[in-house]
């Protein structure tokens, strides 16, 4: 388990809420030009990459999946990631292009990838898998066919009830089938968001922030539920500060012009509840939000078994700070 140590780089999720209450809504917002580059090198970079690669080695089929017809899409993704990384961190990443012969260097890890752009036989891994292993994010490519999006390539190491192995080929609506929310006028939220995603055009990416709580674990996928399922019951009001982490997913939605797909990028960050004391205003806001989560939402997010203990922990923590 790792946590964010530079809180200036931590995306606190409850910044835009009303009446101290969190509810689901279609909250995708347009990105400004200075926010579009999702590359972020934090003090945890090396730890995260090491763990991500271990997961990909341990369970390659679970962690990475693609359809054979996605090769051209994968190269579009490679070009995007290399360009964004060099743009933001020219001191950490570089590329040399001699025609189609590309050499990408990751100076933090001291690694070099040499390949012929557009020729997957010049790599030992698939292009998407290769470049994705240099960045801590999870990457999903949802391809637009007819009026829906289908998961056709995915590399992931911070699953929240998700797995490339299980979800490959599913439509947006299938993947979000368990989302229990219906708007006041009876329209399913999932279908409304599908329609909204269809309006995301190339050149106009969007973003949103999602959050969850996780008990002593950064990754919960279907294939390992026998391990993490019971762990959720270990949480008490005494140990929640260490075990329970506020999990934040900063998400980017980028329409890829050649693939006609939406690239879904997740930057997942963790903060143990005890570290909320470092920012007292975050502590209070988190407490009020968690205290007010309806049962169906806690159930859907998988936090129901340890939510009451977490709320109790935060309440005690706030009271102890007031006493001081």
């Amino acid at each position, binding site marked *: 388990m790792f946590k964010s140590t530079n809180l200036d780089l931590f995306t606190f999720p409850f910044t835009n809420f009303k009446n101290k209450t969190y509810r689901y809504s279609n909250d995708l917002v347009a*990105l400004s*030009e200075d926010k*579009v*580059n999702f590359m972020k090198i934090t003090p945890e970079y090396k730890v995260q990459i090491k763990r991500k690669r271990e997961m990909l080695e341990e369970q390659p089929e679970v962690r990475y999946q693609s359809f054979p017809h996605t090769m051209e899409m994968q190269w*579009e993704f490679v*070009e*995007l990631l290399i*360009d*964004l990384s060099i743009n933001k961190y020219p001191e950490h990443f570089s590329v040399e292009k001699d025609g189609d012969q590309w050499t990408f260097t990751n100076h933090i890890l001291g690694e070099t990838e040499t390949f012929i752009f557009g020729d997957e036989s010049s790599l030992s891994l698939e292009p998407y898998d290769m470049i994705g292993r240099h960045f801590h994010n999870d990457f999903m490519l949802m391809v*637009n*066919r*007819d009026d829906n999006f289908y998961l056709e390539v995915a590399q992931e190491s911070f699953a929240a009830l998700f797995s490339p192995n299980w979800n490959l080929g599913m439509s947006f609506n299938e993947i979000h089938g368990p989302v229990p929310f219906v708007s006041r*006028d009876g329209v399913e939220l999932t279908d409304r968001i599908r*329609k909204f995603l*269809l*309006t995301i*055009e*190339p*050149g*106009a*990416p969007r973003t949103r922030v999602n959050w969850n709580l996780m008990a002593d674990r950064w990754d919960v996928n279907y294939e390992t539920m026998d391990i993490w399922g019971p762990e959720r019951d270990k949480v008490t009001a005494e140990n929640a500060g260490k075990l329970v982490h506020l999990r934040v997913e900063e998400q980017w939605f*980028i329409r890829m*012009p*050649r*693939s*006609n797909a939406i690239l879904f990028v997740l930057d997942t960050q963790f903060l143990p509840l005890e570290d909320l004391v470092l920012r007292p205003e975050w502590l209070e806001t988190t407490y009020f939000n968690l205290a007010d989560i309806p049962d169906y939402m806690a159930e859907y997010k998988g936090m129901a078994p340890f939510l009451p203990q977490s709320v109790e922990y935060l309440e005690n923590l706030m009271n102890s700070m007031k006493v001081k």
Partner: protein
Amino acid sequence: MRVIGNIEMYVGKIEQITESVKRFYLYPSDQKLLPAFTGGAHITTYVDLGDNILEREYSLVSHPTDRTHYAISINRDPHSRGGSAYWHDHIKVGDKVISSFPKNHFTLGFHAKHHVFYAAGIGITPFLTMMEELEAQGKTFELHYAARTKEACAYHDYLHEKYPGKCTFYFSRSDEPQRMTPETMKNQRIGSHVYFCGPVAMVSEYKEAALSYGYPEKSIHFELFAAASGENNPFLVEVINHNKVIEVNPEQTLLEALLDAGIEAPYSCKAGGCGQCEVDVVEGEVDHRDIFFSDEEREQKKMILTCCSRAKEEKLVLKL
């Protein structure tokens, strides 16, 4: 690689294709590679006229993976709203044009076993890149293309040579006039997808015919030039979550009125064909002028496409 915003371009070359069609070659001012695109894609172009901006959508006709430039083909429409006339009469080599990223609301059906294209006049443009893609993928297709004469038929020789045996041309004003009809759709095998591009009347006729022949809705694809016209009544629109009541006058669309009032309403094609400007209707009867919604959807859903549809009576209440 570009990710956000619009792209500043300059006109590098202009070619006369037929008497009324010109091809404009656009190059990026910063010399960096352009985004590649998919067959059927278009761009929105913005030309600065001084007192206002001329905003128009045109299909791309350059190769989808040629990232050095884009090309568009524009027919000088005698009933031009100002767009095609301006491009033909005033745009010259060296002029600046802003382009959006390529967008595609007219994609090839992924599951199609065979693709059948029907073009009327300048409606040929999106099919040029679609056929390029299919040819590269080794998939089968055929083109039916109607024009007044061979001389007025843009890209006739190019198509005839490049895709031998796949193109059928119909010239209505030749010595032996021929008329393109929807009947040819009857002979296609199941699994075929049909695509229409042309004026509203043509697209409506082909769409109705395809449905009547039993084509599933998902196998029918189309793109329009301009929204259907009708009498433009003035009406009021109340936007409940913005606490605003806006007057829509006969000279403007509902979409224009919303944008003028500072409401960030979504839109794209402005022709009632793409569905991007769909908004929830809380109250009021809608005069649907799009061809995006099916009759069933019009009955079941309370929705309006703001770019072309209007209120049936004096007022609509919307939520966006």
